[in-house]
């Protein structure tokens, strides 16, 4: 298990040998394929970011490279109230955008935190103790949690809509946080159980012999060791919640609306207002691109936990 995490690091590359004669040709082929796919992966992002600096003419004529093809213009960002000349002025669009952005942060961070806390506790219990509840043993309880992954959002969407209405949780961030916690909990439990399984029992045994209680040993010994795993689970959860659209579209309307819902509603209503759409889309994906660049290790760690043995 621990090898899985160790192995993600690139220090030990294996040889990939194609049956193409000549070393140069083979490595050139590899690099050509790599560059091609990097282009496929990055071009839509590049296109979106540059389009937010285009005027109508540049869009219709298909100009691609700033300063060469076209002169960048703040048009898209001005319509959002985020360009240098409008940043200090009143802007209803900007206020709206910032509120959605803030909602997204609260919903995803809150849900991820809650999921990591109760998920880690459950994962630790499942990893260390044997439970018996009616006919269910550890294996069944684990399966019960993981099986929630299969549940498609549509099944819960409408009961939630009705129940939330009764509980006055509709269009509230608390309601959204609860749904998102439910959504990421199985993933957190999966990642964290894998984490706890790799921590040797001897450490806790020593603590227990020294007179720690079970919870004391968990909080003082285990949690610090498992922290990187928790961070990985947290980041993965944040990404999933940040991007969630289905529940947000159904359960929120004015107050608790999140960024994806705002982006989606813009695409529908405005026809092709390219520059402002591009600006909103860029702003919506920017935090994730930054997370992807700087926290890639943790994302990979979270994604591969438990999957690679």
């Amino acid at each position: 298990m621990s090898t899985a995490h160790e192995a993600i690091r690139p220090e030990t590359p294996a040889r990939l040998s194609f049956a193409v004669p000549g070393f140069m040709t083979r490595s050139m082929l590899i690099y050509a394929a790599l560059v091609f796919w990097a282009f496929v992966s990055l071009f839509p992002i590049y296109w979106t970011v540059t389009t937010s600096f285009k005027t109508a003419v540049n869009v219709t004529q298909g100009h691609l490279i700033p300063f060469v093809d076209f002169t960048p213009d703040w048009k898209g960002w001005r319509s959002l109230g985020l360009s240098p000349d409008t940043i200090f002025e009143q802007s209803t669009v900007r206020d709206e955008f910032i509120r959605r952005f803030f909602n997204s942060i609260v919903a995803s961070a809150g849900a991820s935190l809650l999921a990591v806390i109760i998920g880690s506790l459950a994962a630790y219990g499942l990893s260390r103790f044997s439970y018996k509840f009616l006919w269910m043993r550890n294996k069944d309880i684990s399966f019960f949690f993981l099986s929630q992954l299969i549940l498609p959002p549509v099944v819960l969407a409408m009961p939630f809509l009705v129940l939330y209405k009764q509980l006055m949780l509709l269009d509230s961030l608390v309601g959204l946080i609860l749904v998102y916690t439910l959504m990421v909990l199985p993933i957190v439990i999966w990642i964290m159980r894998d984490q706890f399984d790799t921590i040797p029992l001897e450490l806790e045994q020593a603590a227990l012999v020294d007179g720690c209680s079970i919870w004391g040993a968990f909080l003082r010994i285990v949690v610090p060791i498992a922290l990187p795993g928790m961070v990985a689970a947290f980041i993965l959860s944040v990404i999933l919640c940040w991007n969630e659209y289905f529940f947000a579209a159904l359960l929120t309307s004015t107050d608790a609306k999140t960024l994806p819902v705002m982006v989606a509603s813009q695409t529908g209503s405005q026809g092709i207002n390219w520059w402002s759409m591009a600006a909103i889309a860029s702003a919506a994906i920017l935090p994730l691109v930054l997370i992807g660049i700087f926290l890639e290790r943790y994302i990979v760690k979270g994604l591969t936990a438990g999957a690679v043995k």
Partner: protein
Amino acid sequence: MSQSMTLVTNEPFAARRAAPAGKHVLLGRAMLAFATVAFLAVLALQSLDAMGVTALGFESWRPLLYVYLIWAAVFGVSQVMIRGEAGERAAFILPAVLFTVAMVIFPTIFGLYIAFTDWNLSAVEGRRFNGLDNLRTLLADAYFWNALLNMVYYVLAVLIQYAIAFGLALLLNAEIKARKFFRVAFLLPLMLSPVAVSWMIGKSLMEYRFGPAATLARYLGWDNPAFFSTPWLARLSIMAMDAWVSIPFMMVLLLAGLQALPAEIKEAARVDGATGWQSFKEITFPLMLPVSMTALILRIIFELKLADIVINVTAGGPGGATDTVSSFIFREYRDRSNVGYGTMLAEVYLVIIIVFVALILKWASRWMQRTN
């Protein structure tokens, strides 16, 4: 993932303390009993109020929520008091269990009830029990079966995603420079929200008049590059977008699998004079089967929930050609406020998914056993 369960052992954590003394047990039992009675009382009062028997004037069911939270907390504390260390152990798993039960079991049962009612939010009559009518409508609903058929295509497309992802993982596992850059670049699409991707690719890159993809297609000699005009073209476009977002997921899993392979085996194959293709076919691929299975099954489970991109790019069109079951139900609710029927669709879909995934899991485990 289930192998790790065998690690569970009780020995180092054998109960060291005897069960707690009688006073604690009694107090714990009393607290639990009191909380349970309070919970049931509020439940009864609210139900009576909702049925109009009493007029206490509850504004919502909120009080019940608070009582449930209190009951859950008391339940945890009383477990520790009554059962001592066994209770402390149970306290680890209780929050997650109580949370999931409240959030899944109850809504699912409630959903089953809604599914057998005729309930349109925009209609005046409100909820009305109509037995199996929804099921009958469903059986005759060509759009639902069409959406289900589309799901088959989308799931089959996962195999192509898998092939591409495997290729990319092999590339990243080769001796290359700037590996970090390529890994991050390849991973980025996974991070982006499907809604943003819908606009970035579906509505602007593939836009008929000015989109770069359309321009490129024209340059390559395709006169009329309307990516969403005919059913199959639209379906392929959605598949392409979905693949763009989700290939990195499988790629990351497969890459981790490749890097966990023992280097000696490949070395031995090379010494024996195996060519690249031979060593891939005879050694790498068979060794990667378990990881491949995990990646494929996870991807298929996620693929079955595909909705965001379809809702935002084509809204199911043209003529339902790109509809997924989820996006179809989404519109059934959003556009027609048809809660009863939409829920029945969702419940039937859930049953189909459970059967399908169970079959896949069974088939996969049997197949893995045979190949080992």
